[in-house]
């Protein structure tokens, strides 16, 4: 910026020189026409140097920025003199004009022509405007003074700090600018504003950054920075090492990995689960802890909290998943024990069943039953699951089994007591949460149990409605210890066969065959979605299922046909020719519509490349025929 300033100064100086030359020349012509004439007459051809010398000799400080005035005066001077001076003056005119070639060649010519009759007064007034030295400083000052003050002036408070650095740094500035800057503080504040603005206006782009920095340093808004600081900042950019970026980044602190504090309920759940385990193991009733959590357990907390178990329950799904195998496990045991259960449990690892344990299990189940009854279906299933987990962990399957049976039964009771919808929900929920297969057996037990246990239901219903008191649990458990086993055993055997057979025809599968249904269904679903897309109309869910059935049949037909065709061709591999024949028979491919056309229409490009032979470079065809 300083260099540029210097250049500008030089240019200005040159211009000012030119202007001064012109003015001086015109003055020369006006004032000392005769002298000039004499001198010029002596010199046949007045060169610029001679003219300049004349000018300097008769130097008269004039504002350098009055080209017009110079011109006007100069032009004005022309007609005043005699013709013998005309050449001189023309030369004089030409010299400044030549010097002004840089700036305004055309304008000079125009001005000369225009101002031939220009106003004397105007020239004189303009000429007499500023009687300062013809330096870039004065030039600038004139500019600044004459330029209109913009509205973006800073308040004086801002200007003053601007002035201060300017004054401080004035010494370091280059000569021309420095003098100007020094003058600035002397002037009145408004004038300082103007010069600052004007100077900045000219050097806005260059100084903006430094100005901005300084402004930031000074705590000023960026809009105000250029006003006063441009000069100072431009020159002192090297000096001002205090352009520090505001250290506000530190203030913004990351919240950090704030962990959520464990909810109060978590403790309850943990204790509750531990208590469950304890009760299941020891069958002693440390129930207080159980009751309170059971009573207050909302579904989410039970599900979400991972409490310090021996085997951690990560969350709802894992617990549920754990519960599922446990349920199946227990279910299997139940079957064995009842000896009238379905064979679905055969796949499960069954453990020993004993009547005594059954009693214990029942006793243990009472808790869960109550809990389930009191809680929501979610809770029940979860607790149910958790119960399942614990027996798994403990290795006492029967307990869980019994518990689950009881819980299921009780759940069913509760559902009945409160409405069939709940049972359905519960069942549905349990079904949803459980995996296919062995779960069904456990679920099937629910309706059985519900219908069977009248007294247990009665007893359980009351605590359910009363919403959970551990005392109830304990009391019930104790109560159920004796009567529970026989009725449960009596009830359970009777119940399972019918609902199971009614409800789960496809369900009794070994877990190994589970993947068969899912991928097949997903594949069909893929095409069903295409159906939805092709139809361009909303469809019912049942319609989609219908489509899947149709697709299933279609696949059957397809495979049979392909087999026939391949056999007809004496092959054991189905080849594209067989497919083409099939499509021809279906009416998709005809003499008008070829297979390639269909391929092009409906298949993406990549498949088309593989299907339709295409010639490539090197005299090759892909795919090879």
């Amino acid at each position: 910026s300083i260099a540029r300033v210097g250049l500008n100064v030089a240019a200005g100086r040159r211009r000012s020189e030119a202007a001064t030359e012109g003015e001086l020349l015109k003055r020369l012509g006006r004032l000392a026409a005769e002298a000039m004439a004499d001198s010029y007459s002596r010199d046949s051809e007045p060169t610029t140097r001679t003219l300049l010398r004349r000018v300097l000799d008769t130097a008269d400080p004039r504002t350098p920025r009055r080209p017009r005035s110079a011109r006007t005066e100069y032009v004005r001077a022309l007609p005043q003199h005699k013709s013998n001076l005309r050449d001189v003056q023309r030369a004089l005119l030409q010299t400044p004009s030549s010097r002004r070639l840089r700036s305004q060649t055309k304008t000079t010519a125009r001005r000369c022509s225009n101002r031939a009759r220009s106003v004397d007064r105007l020239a004189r007034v303009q000429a007499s405007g500023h009687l300062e030295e013809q330096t870039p400083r004065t030039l600038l000052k004139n500019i600044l003074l004459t330029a209109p003050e913009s509205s973006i002036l800073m308040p004086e408070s801002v200007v003053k700090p601007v002035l201060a650095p300017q004054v401080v740094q004035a010494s370091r500035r280059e000569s021309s600018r420095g003098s100007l800057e020094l003058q600035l503080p002397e002037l009145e504040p408004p004038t300082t504003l103007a010069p600052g603005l004007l100077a900045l206006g000219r050097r806005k782009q260059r100084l903006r950054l430094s100005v901005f920095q300084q402004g930031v340093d000074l705590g000023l808004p960026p809009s105000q920075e250029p006003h006063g600081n441009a000069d100072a900042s431009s020159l002192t950019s090297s000096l001002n090492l205090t352009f520090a970026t505001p250290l506000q980044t530190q203030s913004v602190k990351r919240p950090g990995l704030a962990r959520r504090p464990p909810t109060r309920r978590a403790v309850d759940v943990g204790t509750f689960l531990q208590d469950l385990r304890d009760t299941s193991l020891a069958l002693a009733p440390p129930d207080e802890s159980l009751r309170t959590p059971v009573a207050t357990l909302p579904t989410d907390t039970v599900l979400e909290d991972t409490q310090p178990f021996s085997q951690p329950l990560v969350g709802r799904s894992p617990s549920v998943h754990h519960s599922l195998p446990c349920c199946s496990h227990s279910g299997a045991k139940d079957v064995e024990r009842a000896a009238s259960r379905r064979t679905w449990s055969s796949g499960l690892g069954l453990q020993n069943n004993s009547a005594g344990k059954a009693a214990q299990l029942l006793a243990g189940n009472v808790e869960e039953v109550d809990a389930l009854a009191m809680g929501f279906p979610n809770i029940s299933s979860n607790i149910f699951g958790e119960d399942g987990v614990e027996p798994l962990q403990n290795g006492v399957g029967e307990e869980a089994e019994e518990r689950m049976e009881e819980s299921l039964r009780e759940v069913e009771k509760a559902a009945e007591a409160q409405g069939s919808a709940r049972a359905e929900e519960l069942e549905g929920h349990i079904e949803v949460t459980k995996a296919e297969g062995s779960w069904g057996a456990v679920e099937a037990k629910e309706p059985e149990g519900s219908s069977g246990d009248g007294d247990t239901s009665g007893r359980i219903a009351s605590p359910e409605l009363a919403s959970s008191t551990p005392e109830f649990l304990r009391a019930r458990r104790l109560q159920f210890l004796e009567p529970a086993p026989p009725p449960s055993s009596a009830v359970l055997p009777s119940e399972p066969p019918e609902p199971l057979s009614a409800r789960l025809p496809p369900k009794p599968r070994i877990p190994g065959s589970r993947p068969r249904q899912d991928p097949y269904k997903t594949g069909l679903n893929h095409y069903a979605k295409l159906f939805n897309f092709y139809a361009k109309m909303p469809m019912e869910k049942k319609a989609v299922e219908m489509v899947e059935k149709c697709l299933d049949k279609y696949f059957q037909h397809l495979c049979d046909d392909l087999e026939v065709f391949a056999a007809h061709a004496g092959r054991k591999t189905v080849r594209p020719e067989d497919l083409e024949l099939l499509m021809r028979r279906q009416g998709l491919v005809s003499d008008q519509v070829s297979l390639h056309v269909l391929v092009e229409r409906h298949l993406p490009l990549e498949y088309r490349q593989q299907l339709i032979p295409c010639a490539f470079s090197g005299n090759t065809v892909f795919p090879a025929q």
Partner: protein
Amino acid sequence: MALSTTVSQKKLIKRKAPRGFLKRVFKQRKPHLRLETNSDLLVHLNCLLFVHRLAEEARTNACENKCGVIKKEHVLAAAKVILKKSRG
């Protein structure tokens, strides 16, 4: 030089053919038969066309009943017709 059998240009194909699914279905039903690579795609094409025809027919049925939604009955009726046509 022949191109490779892999997908050229871009790795992402919209509306991919469930080739694995088709092969598995065929294998399950006809274990003694084999399905060739390219015929897999033609089977997929066949399925597309079948579904297309089915959808058209179902839509026609629904529009005839002045129904804005395709219902089970429409699909059923359409399936009867199209399956008969696709007997081969």
